């Protein structure tokens, strides 16, 4: 235990920037949901209507939580946001504990610390104490937001405690994983999988057999029914008990292993490169592969979720005319307007992926990993082009996944198998706009490399604001014109014609070519 206090103080200092963002972000998420829900379903009739619409929609229940929550406005808020807030809190705990235990051990920082007058268990205790403090702060923030937006104090205390408790469980689970795996990456992989499993189990449980929900900490949290008649505190105690037991397991494992070692040895890789790893493009694909697959699956799932609501949307709009204001085209063509809006969301996410992938080139360059490649017979155009190629092709795949997923589930609910193909085509109408956004990042990589990250993300953010908030903010027309999304048709609401697509595509090509040309002129690595 010696040194735990000092280490805790030190880790708080290391986390002084990131931690407030996690805590504030979780609070903000709850705040937005609370305000929005109370505006939309403020009366008992509106709530009853919502329960009627959603009660029969398995997809929404699987995404959100048990339908029993929908008996009060507070419960409705928990229904919509609790599972997502729980995932964020779980991720925060995973990164906090992982970074300060296995992460430090892997980089050798912990060796320096352990050589001082510090007990063997001190780093683990300090990391867990850090996580506990962070969970307490999250709970305080959630409680303050809930009470501040007019929800009853007792229920707010329970929902805050349930979120904090979920955090503790995953903090303790990360502490166990940190003893098992040799590298932080393995720890994050395993705990990330556990978080995903917790969400999927409660989804299966809420939509089907409730026993499955009881296998998930997120399920325990939702089943406290904080604002309902049958409030339960005991699931919070279950969380605390599980967390304590996991800490015990972590300590047992810690006392039995060598410093730097794990219980599972990391697998050796290939001693020789496969044929695929023989070019700059092959390396780029290898580096981006995981991200491409993750984004395609994630955005595809989001598309499935959006699509599953397509059929209910008409009924939903009739019940909630306020929502129609957010849809392009208003209440007429409601389904097409809804599909256009949600596909636009998918396109914005595809653009975000593309920008992130393009910016990876800059990260490689500043880390010094471009230098050994550019010292071989790889031209600058081929090297930057390899990353931009993955960014452009990958963003197309993400966009296709959004359209295909949405079409698939929408087609299933309305009994029209052609929808998957149709919606894939609809999504591709947004591809030139997606590429134009990625091309902004490409251009700045060539000419203003130090500002490339800012330029790329500003482009994404600007397009998102223009697409999602232009009407509600009443932005002037001239301010919107720079967004490529304004210039491509809002399929399937508007007919698709070739001219605007080709024009936006041409702009994208010019920007990418200019970026490649700029990269041939500048110093590399600075």
């Amino acid at each position, binding site marked *: 235990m010696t040194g735990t206090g000092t280490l805790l103080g030190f880790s708080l200092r290391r986390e002084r920037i990131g931690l407030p963002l996690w805590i504030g972000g979780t609070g903000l998420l709850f705040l937005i949901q609370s305000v929005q829900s109370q505006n939309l379903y403020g009366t008992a009739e509106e709530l009853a209507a919502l329960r009627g619409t959603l009660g029969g929609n398995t997809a929404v229940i699987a995404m959100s939580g048990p339908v029993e929550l929908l008996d009060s406005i507070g419960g409705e808020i928990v229904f919509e946001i609790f599972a997502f807030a729980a995932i964020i809190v779980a991720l925060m705990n995973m990164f906090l504990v992982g970074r300060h235990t296995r992460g430090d051990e892997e980089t050798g920082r912990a060796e320096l610390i352990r050589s001082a007058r510090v007990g063997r268990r001190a780093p683990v205790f300090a990391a867990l104490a850090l996580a506990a403090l962070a969970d307490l702060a999250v709970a305080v923030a959630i409680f303050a937001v809930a009470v501040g937006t007019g929800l009853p104090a007792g229920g707010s205390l329970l929902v805050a405690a349930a979120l904090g408790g979920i955090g503790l469980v995953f903090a303790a689970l990360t502490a166990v994983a940190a003893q098992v795996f040799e590298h932080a990456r393995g720890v994050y992989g395993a705990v990330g999988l556990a978080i995903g499993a917790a969400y999927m189990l409660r989804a299966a449980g809420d939509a089907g057999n409730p026993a499955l929900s009881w296998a998930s900490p997120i399920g325990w949290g939702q089943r406290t029914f904080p604002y309902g008649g049958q409030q339960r505190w005991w699931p919070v105690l279950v969380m605390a008990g599980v967390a304590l037991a996991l800490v015990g397991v972590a300590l047992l494992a810690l006392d039995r292993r060598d410093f730097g070692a794990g219980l599972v040895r990391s697998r050796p*890789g*290939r001693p020789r490169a496969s044929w695929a790893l023989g*070019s700059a493009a092959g390396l780029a694909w290898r580096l981006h592969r995981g991200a491409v697959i993750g984004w395609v699956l994630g955005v595809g799932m989001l598309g499935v979720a959006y699509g599953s609501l397509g059929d209910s949307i008409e009924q939903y709009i009739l019940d909630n005319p306020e929502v129609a204001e957010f849809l392009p085209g208003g209440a007429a063509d409601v389904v097409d307007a809804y599909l256009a809006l949600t596909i636009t969301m998918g396109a914005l996410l595809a653009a975000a992926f593309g920008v992130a992938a393009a910016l990876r080139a800059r990260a490689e360059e500043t880390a010094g*990993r471009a230098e050994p490649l550019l010292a071989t017979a790889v031209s600058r155009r081929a090297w930057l082009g390899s990353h931009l190629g993955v960014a452009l092709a990958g963003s197309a795949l993400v966009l296709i996944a959004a359209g295909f997923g949405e079409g698939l589930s929408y087609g299933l609910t309305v009994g029209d198998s052609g929808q998957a193909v149709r919606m894939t085509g609809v999504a591709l109408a947004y591809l030139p706009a997606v590429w134009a956004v990625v091309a902004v990042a490409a251009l700045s990589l060539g000419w203003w490399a130090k500002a490339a990250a800012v330029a790329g993300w500003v482009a994404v953010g600007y397009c998102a604001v223009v697409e999602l908030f232009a009407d509600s903010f009443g932005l002037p027309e001239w301010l919107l014109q720079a967004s490529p999304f304004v210039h491509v048709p809002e399929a399937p609401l508007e007919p698709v014609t070739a001219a605007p697509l080709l024009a936006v595509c041409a702009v994208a090509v010019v920007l990418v070519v200019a970026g490649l040309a700029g990269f041939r002129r500048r*110093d*590399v690595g*600075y």
Partner: protein
Amino acid sequence: MSAIAISGLTKTFGRTTALDGLDLTVREGEVHGFLGPNGSGKTTTIRVLLGLLRADAGEVRLLGGDPWADAVALHRRLAYVPGDVILWPGITGGEVIDLLGRLRGGLDRKRRDELLDRFDLDPSKKARAYSKGNRQKVALVAALASDAELLLLDEPTSGLDPLMESEFQRCVRQVKQDGRTVLLSSHILAEVEALCDRVSIIRLGRTVESGTLRELRHLTRTSIAVETARPVTGLADLPGVHDAVFEDHRARFDVDSQGLEPVMQRLATLGVRSITSTPPTLEEMFLRHYGDEDRS
């Protein structure tokens, strides 16, 4: 013909001047030592040679071409080992060696496996599990397994243990026997002395000395600490002895390389009980020969 010919090379980054009129000539088939203290501009020079940085002024020729304009064609004929080898964490050392070899235009598989053996490197480990020394070995094996006619090595042994360092020296001698050219940057004088035909010494982005090791011998001075059976006398007056401290049966002093022989003869008559000699560090040498006059 020269493999590398640089004259008056200047490179600035904002307000810092990294290279200030540097000259460097490396003849074909020689091992050329490129010496200078940390931050003197060795790495910047090599990056200009690789076409990664554009020269602000001066003439740079590499293997008869322009390193900026003909980068890709020239890179087929050279191999490079960076001073700080940074690899992709999820890719194994063996994969990196193969990748870099293929990107350069093929590598000799037999020599690759032999080098892995000689450097005792496990190619199936992912790069995140390698120590600094092992990452350096990955880059060394990739470079040495190639048929490149020019090797650019930027402080290639900074992470290696003495055993591996001598293995490295054997490899470089082999490369020299094959008639290939090596530019070996270093801040360790002894390493350069062991391998190089000619040496260029740079400081603050400028070449201060260039020539064969014999020509530069006047720069080197050895520090000697000795314990003798009889009291130490008659040493201080010998030519080339500096900073001597005598203490009955013990003495510590520095001696120029030309003065070594008479000093050793004198010591032999005193009955040497123990003796340690240390080569001068480059930093000491610089302090002595160039003073601090242009260090700002």
